[in-house]
């Protein structure tokens, strides 16, 4: 049987061996096939992922490249979200380095994970920052991978719940603009080299967006500054002296806002340049609680900031802290019409107490200042009234001249129109004589200048504002005035004679106001001669040195003279002998002359007619 047995093995041995070999081969084949399929699937997967990444990259570029300044942060956040979802990260953030060593952060996080605050100090991750600054990627899969030097970084990562983190520097044009980082909160994870390389590609898109934002902000900032500068230039070019102080303070305020400073001041040097006095200042100080108290007339005092109520005066406390004020007493200055101002004493270095007795003394001193302030306010009000009265007087004087001024203006305008129409017609007829055209244009230019002069003279006279004192040539002033009235006089068939003393010394005064006085006297003179039946109607204007220190300007008419009954009252306000007069002209004229340190008088001439004259002191500024 054994033979049989042997023979059985012998008979089937090859079958068995071949069969087993076949099975083995098949198994090998199947195994290899399976292996191939797996690797192909992996390759396919990697290809698909690669494609997804490509799509993400192009999508982000498409959204972040053309974005406008105000939408850039929103788009960045949207981009972060897309990248984090792609990576399966829990939190993604983009940190932008600000000029003042802080960073601004745009952050996105999955549900349940805290986003991080938007402005943070750059010193939270010193080691990481240093690496990034050198252009290196910082990554760890576990917190323990961070080196010993990174203890602070590790602590802050731990506080933020980060278990793995990848940070990529964002740089453009050689400087580091910010950081792109991805955190894993829920579990630790790896950051394969290939992934990091891809993310570096992505980071370039974000860096580009940051760079553009920075450039646009820079431009916008420059523009804002240009606007500020041109606004201030425009404001100051048209101001009267009394408006300037307020305008300077407003400007300081704008400038403080612009530079985000706390306090700005303008100081003027004394004549000898040894002392500078602060003339204007602006403090960006919000102290609503204190102001409310002062407005109720209460004294406010504190020896240290802690004495101010914590919640009600929270804004005030912050302001004092910022300005470094340690203690303060503020005394309201009360006037008849209410609160005039406030009188403040502060300590900056140390805290101090303000005893009752001291406060009482300050209140007494405050009354002195309140008196000064209220006196100045009423003085300014009176000055303003006087000025507007002077202006009204001038406007009504000019109103009398309106018809002849309109005539003065119509003449050159008519000539311009006719000349231009003559040129049009000549050109239309085709016969162009260049010489004639040149003459026509020259005439147009000349007439335009003439019209401009009329307007200029009028505008000068109608100017409203503070007196502008200057050195004046009296003869010049008289001649300028006569140009305004000469056509009026000619139409009334009256003549104006000038008797101007040569080489008169100059006077110090306001040209417009003094011309107003002369104009007023001349028009009065012309009016006085209206009823005159016989004889030549002549108005004589004379300038002369009155004494070594004064100049006298005289206006003499050939009218009927002043009724002796009126002679004493003619300078009174609202006293008039004209049917349509306001009775203001002479009163205003006299007040102008007196404000210039001169005197005005009126008298009748023995041979008929009236003479008005006024004096002006000779001199320049400061006399």
């Amino acid at each position, binding site marked *: 049987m054994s033979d049989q047995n042997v023979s059985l093995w012998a008979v089937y041995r090859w079958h068995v061996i071949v069969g087993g070999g076949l099975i083995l081969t098949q198994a090998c084949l199947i195994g290899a096939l399976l292996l191939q399929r797996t690797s192909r699937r992996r390759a396919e997967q990697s290809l698909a992922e690669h494609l997804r990444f490509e799509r993400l990259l192009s999508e982000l570029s498409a959204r972040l490249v053309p974005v406008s300044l105000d939408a850039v942060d929103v788009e960045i956040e949207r981009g972060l979200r897309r990248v984090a979802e792609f990576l399966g990260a829990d939190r993604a953030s983009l940190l932008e380095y600000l000029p003042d060593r802080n960073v601004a952060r745009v952050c996105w996080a999955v549900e349940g994970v805290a986003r991080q605050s938007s402005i943070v100090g750059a010193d939270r991750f010193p080691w990481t920052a240093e690496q990034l600054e050198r252009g290196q990627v910082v990554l760890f899969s576990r917190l323990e991978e961070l080196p010993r030097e990174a203890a602070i970084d590790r602590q802050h990562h731990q506080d933020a719940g980060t278990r793995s983190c990848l940070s990529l520097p964002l740089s453009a044009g050689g400087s580091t603009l910010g950081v792109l980082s991805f955190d894993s909160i829920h579990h630790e994870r790896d950051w394969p080299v290939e992934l990091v390389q891809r993310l570096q590609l992505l980071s370039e898109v974000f860096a580009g967006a940051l760079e553009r934002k920075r450039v646009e902000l820079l431009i916008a900032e420059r523009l804002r500054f240009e606007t500020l500068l041109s606004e201030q230039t425009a404001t100051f070019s048209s101001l009267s002296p009394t408006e300037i102080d307020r305008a300077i303070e407003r400007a300081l305020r704008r400038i403080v806002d612009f530079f985000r400073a706390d306090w700005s001041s303008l100081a003027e040097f004394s004549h000898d340049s040894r002392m500078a006095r602060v003339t204007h200042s602006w403090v960006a100080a919000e102290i609503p609680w204190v102001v409310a108290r002062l407005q109720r007339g209460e004294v406010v005092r504190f020896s240290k900031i802690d004495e101010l109520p914590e919640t009600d005066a929270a804004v005030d406390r912050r302001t004092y802290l910022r300005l470094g004020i340690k203690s303060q007493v503020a005394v309201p200055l009360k006037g008849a019409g209410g609160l005039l101002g406030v009188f403040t004493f502060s300590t900056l270095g140390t805290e101090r107490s303000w005893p009752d007795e001291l406060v009482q003394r300050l209140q007494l001193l405050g009354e002195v200042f309140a008196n000064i302030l209220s006196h100045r306010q009423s003085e300014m009000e009176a000055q303003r009234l006087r000025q507007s009265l002077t202006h009204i007087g001038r406007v009504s004087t000019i109103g009398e001249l309106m*018809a002849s001024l*309109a*005539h003065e203006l*119509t*003449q*050159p*305008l*008519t*000539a*311009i*129109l*006719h*000349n231009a*129409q*003559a040129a*049009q*017609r*000549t050109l239309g*007829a085709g016969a162009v004589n260049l010489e004639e055209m040149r003459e*026509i244009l020259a*005439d147009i230019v*000349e*007439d335009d200048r*003439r019209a401009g002069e009329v307007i200029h003279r009028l505008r000068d006279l109608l100017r409203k504002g503070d007196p502008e004192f200057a050195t004046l040539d009296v003869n010049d002033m008289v001649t300028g005035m006569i140009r305004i009235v000469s056509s009026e006089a*000619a*139409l009334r*068939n009256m003549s104006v004679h000038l008797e101007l003393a040569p080489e008169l010394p100059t006077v110090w005064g306001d040209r417009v106001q003094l011309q107003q006085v002369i104009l007023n006297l001349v028009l009065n003179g012309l009016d006085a001669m209206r009823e005159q039946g016989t004889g030549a109607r002549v108005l004589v204007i004379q300038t002369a040195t009155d004494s070594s220190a004064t100049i006298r300007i005289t206006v003499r008419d050939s009218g009927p003279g002043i009724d002796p009954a009126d002679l004493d009252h003619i300078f009174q306000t609202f006293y008039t002998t004209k049917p349509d007069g306001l009775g203001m002209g002479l009163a205003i004229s006299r007040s102008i002359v007196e404000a210039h340190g001169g005197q005005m008088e009126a008298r009748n001439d023995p041979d008929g007619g009236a003479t008005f004259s006024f004096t002006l002191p000779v001199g320049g500024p400061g006399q």
Partner: protein
Amino acid sequence: MIGPVAPLVFVVDDDPSVRKSLARLIATDGYKVETFASAREFLARPLPEGPCCLVLDVRMPGLTGLALQEALAASRNRLSIVFITGHGDVASTVKAMKGGAIDFLTKPVNARVLLSAIERGVSTDRQSRQKQAKIAELQDRIKTLTAREAEVFALVVTGMLNKQIASDLGISEKMVKVHRGRVMQKMRAGSLAELVRLADQGGVMVAKP
């Protein structure tokens, strides 16, 4: 409009540049222009033979435009006047138009308006000149009549018969016929109707029957 001899336009305005520009503009229409700085200066100039028109500023020192119009009317010189004024008030407008002004324009004047007024002024002037010339010529003819012929002429044109005229003048009817023939001849009239018209134009005082 503008004949072989260019019509003359006088510009009177006290403002030199307005005067010059007006002259320049008016000249573009082919007129001859003379300028004057005042009404007096203009009055010193003898009036021209040909057609003309006066452009006059209302408001001038010395003699005003309206005063010049009155002065011209008083000296029986009926010139065509176009007034120009800075600001037209109703009173002076009415006065100027009643005085026979062609137009009363307010500065600044549009070229078309001004030139059309001047055109009307010139044509009015030309017509009145033609009329004047005709009258002058008729009066010359009338002057050639003897005293008797003139008497006959005055009666004939009233439509009186020869017999009536003869008895009126106390002469024979035959003499009336002779005188009448001479009148027709001297007055160069072809018919009684034409003689009547000439008498009318020549301003012959017609004695009412």
